[in-house]
């Protein structure tokens, strides 16, 4: 019962941190547009928080480059468990058109584990909403920390990711 309540609360209250990880702004403004009256993502209990410590969902737009990958990693680690990551746009998924530019590392999953990928260039707000809904499904699956112990589950080691495909 208690766990069910917690899970329900989690799914109903995803606070998002939006990190522009070197996006061209296309995906970025579409993400921001989700907050605005036309799409009003707050319907789903979602609010945009400015700080990883308050966030449950990390929305990442843009290509990872050598400078911002450190920021991305740090933000991810500062988020309390359970958390999900949504990569948005061709850039966030793979690097998009810029994949072979010298300062581009690639998609978000080169640095942190990604739960949901939202394709598009830019991904339109509806797609982002779909992505969020999918992410909530993922969030539902993540273990209830009271049982699992919030110690270190889900923390990501880049080494693990380096070769494996998810």
């Amino acid at each position, binding site marked *: 019962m208690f766990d069910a*309540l*917690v899970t*329900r*609360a*989690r799914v*109903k*209250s995803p*606070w998002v941190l939006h990190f522009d990880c070197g996006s061209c702004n296309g995906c970025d403004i579409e993400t921001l547009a989700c907050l*605005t*009256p036309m799409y*009003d993502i*707050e*319907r*789903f*209990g979602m*609010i*945009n*928080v*400015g*700080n990883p*410590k*308050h966030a*449950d969902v990390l929305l990442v737009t843009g290509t990872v480059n050598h400078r911002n990958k450190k920021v991305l990693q740090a933000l991810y680690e*500062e988020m*309390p*468990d*359970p958390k999900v990551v949504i990569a948005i746009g061709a850039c966030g998924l793979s690097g998009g058109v810029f994949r072979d530019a010298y300062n581009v590392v690639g998609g978000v999953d080169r640095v942190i584990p990604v739960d949901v990928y939202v394709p598009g260039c830019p991904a339109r707000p509806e797609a982002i909403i779909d992505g969020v809904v999918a992410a909530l499904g993922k969030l539902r699956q993540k273990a*209830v*920390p*009271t049982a699992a112990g*919030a110690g270190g589950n889900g923390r990501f080691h880049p080494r693990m990711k380096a070769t494996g495909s998810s």
Partner: protein
Amino acid sequence: MKIALLTLAGLVLAPLAGGLLAGVDRKVTAWLQSRKGPPIIQPFYDLIKLFAKEKLAVNPWQVLCAWVYLMAAVFSVVLFFNQADLLLLFFVQAVGAVFLVMGALSVPSPYSQVGAQRELLQVLTYEPLLMLVFVGIYQVTGSFRISSVLDHPRPLLLELPLLYLVLTYALTIKLRKSPFDFSTSHHAHQELVRGVLTEYSGPFLGLVELAHWYETVLILGLCALFWATSVPGMAILLGATYFLELLVDNTMARMTWRWMLRYVWTVGLVLAFTNLLWLHL
């Protein structure tokens, strides 16, 4: 027995009312912005979720301070329900305010530091005003006890209209609404990230949220005292006041604390003083 019952009522009803109010707040705000908005019980989801999150902190002091903040808020609500001394209640809530600031100062984070400094300036702004409101109540009823307000035959609003306005300033500051949401804002888009709350997360943020609900109830309770003679009058006053808060929140930019110090102190003091003066003469 009565004390125990009232205490219990304060303990249980206040957070329910506070949470619900926060929900209504968000819904109405959304409507004012032509949005659909979250469900009314959204704040409860938020709170439960926060309590179920991983415990993350920078140092243990923060946690202590969050706790004391909550304790103080709860206790002041209990005092309110028990119709205690207004000044005492004021001091007890000040414990919370001070601990919130100290918690933010205990971490080496510039955002929470600047937030703490601003919070102090907010305290500096609203504390004297609140105190003068209480003095006004004393001047009318002859006592600082809430019970004597309830015994007063006429609504206080008729005698203290300007001080009620002053109280709404304090309310706006305490509710962290525009134009006074400097030290921490409900909206993410603020230069201080989340100001005093930046470093709180998960259950600890939950503590602070909960305390905030109690505080909201407390300060609205104070507003309610201004029409304590009838329940409908009270409800109308509170409803109108809160709606006005939302309207102001949605029709004003955030100002700066320098402006607040200048503006609220002068206007607030002039209003308060005028009202006190005519009571005195």
